[in-house]
């Protein structure tokens, strides 16, 4: 999932200050799962903003709340078209994709990001999320026992560990596993150490220049796409 972190309330306050009527818009997918931008957080944030404002003696803003199933899909944005007409700004708690889809869909509306989009990752345990994928566009997990060196090695190197690894941890932090030690151990367990002995040439960064686009094959379009 896409992992995000809510911006500090005072940062959000400064961002919304110029606008009177603000819609706080949650998103029902990734950001709901990582407890940063779902229905519950929308409600908490509204209370926090109102409380902060009341404490400062003012009540200049009016906040409304909505949460969509997905902000990154224009089909769902149409559902709030009516409400958006009466407001000055949308404070989106979706990832950067949601914020930009809103901006594209409502060309005259100010859209503000209420969260920082952090990474693609997984919930490691309750309240802890770890990055797992860089979306590099050239997956090589088959070669590295399902552990991504591009994401999990701080240097993203492809031919084994650097000399900075100590106690199986990274030179950057004694809390962080060395990806290449993990890869070595798992390849050994799978009897596939030959994969580590291979030389891997430098990465091809051509799939990377941004922004990227994927165009579906004609057969995909013919069956009407996959819009469940």
């Amino acid at each position, binding site marked *: 999932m896409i992992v995000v972190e809510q911006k500090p309330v005072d940062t959000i306050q400064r961002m919304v200050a110029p606008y009177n009527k603000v819609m706080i818009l949650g998103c029902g997918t990734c950001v709901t799962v990582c407890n940063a931008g779902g229905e519950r957080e929308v409600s908490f944030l509204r209370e926090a903003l109102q409380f902060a404002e009341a404490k400062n003696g003012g009540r200049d803003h009016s906040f409304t709340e909505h949460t969509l199933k997905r902000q990154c899909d224009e089909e769902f944005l149409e559902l709030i078209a009516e409400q958006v007409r009466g407001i000055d700004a949308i404070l989106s708690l979706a990832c950067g994709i949601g914020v930009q889809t809103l901006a594209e869909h409502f060309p005259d509306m100010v859209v503000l990001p209420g969260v920082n989009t952090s990474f693609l990752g997984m919930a490691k345990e309750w309240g802890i999320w770890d990055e797992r994928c860089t979306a590099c566009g050239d997956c090589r997990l088959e070669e590295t026992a399902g552990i991504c060196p591009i994401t999990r090695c*701080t*240097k*993203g*190197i*492809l*031919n*084994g*560990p*650097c*000399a*900075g*690894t*100590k*106690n*199986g941890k*990274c*030179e*950057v*932090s004694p809390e962080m596993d*060395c990806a*290449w*030690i993990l890869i*070595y151990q798992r390849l050994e367990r799978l009897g596939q*150490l030959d994969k*580590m*002995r291979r*030389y891997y*040439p*430098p*990465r091809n*960064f051509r799939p990377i220049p941004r922004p990227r686009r994927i165009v579906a094959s004609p057969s995909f379009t013919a069956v009407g796409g996959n819009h469940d």
Partner: protein
Amino acid sequence: MTKSLFEEKLNSSKFLITTEVGPPKGVDISELEHHIELLKDKVDAINVTDHQSSIMRYPSLGGCLLIKERGGEPILQMTCRDRNRMALQADLLFAHSRGVNNVLALTGDSVDVGDHPEVKPVFDVESAQLLKMIRTLESGKDAAGNDLKGAPQFCVGASVHPSADFIEPQLIKFEKKVAAGAQFFQTQGIFELASFRRFMQYASQFDVKILAGVIVMASAGMARYMNKSVPGIIVPKEVIDELATAEKGKGLQKGIEIAVRMIREIKENNLCDGIHIMAVGNEGIVPEIIEAALMEKVQT
């Protein structure tokens, strides 16, 4: 024909001595020049570090040119942290054109450990890939396969960590560096010989020269700090304890004693092909160490 004076020595049976100098942060190069003058006739080659520990400094290539101008033999330390393939190749072409023909190919420390932790780390390639890229340049092609107008030639080295706590993955990397074209290795700091002997038993099957890295510690505090904060350094407790026995202000003397003992043991037992002395800021004491360890003035 050999590619450099240092390669000529590598090909001989001489016990090799290299050391390193760290360029300053700023344009006052007087101390660097002083160290070069002091060392150039005492060692077989002088490495110039490349923003060591990810601390921004005067460039390695600049230091190498200073050595060259003074008639010394430089080894250009080149890390992959700050330059992509285009910039690395350009610097290599320039280095060759100025007679800097020895290169130590390193991945480089993470930017997080240095004094510019907010910069973009590059790591477009890493050590093994850089080695291969250097060999490709020598074949008259650049990394994208285009023809070069005049191909450079380099004597190329790399680094290895014989006392790493997970040694097997390091050895796999070592073999990749050998296959990628490394002719010599300057090891990370060696502080005990048991693991180094084991490493040499394994490494002697490869046609490469190994120079044992000897770090001169200035105090027990420095050793503890390096253990904690410097990537690739593991100082054993016994060494820290020995440093701690030094009287106040005599830490460096104790560090020299330990280094000299280490070098003697390596040379007398014929453990490897030479040594690489890292004095980390105390470059001035290197001649003294060499003299004490080898009991003769080193002729180059």
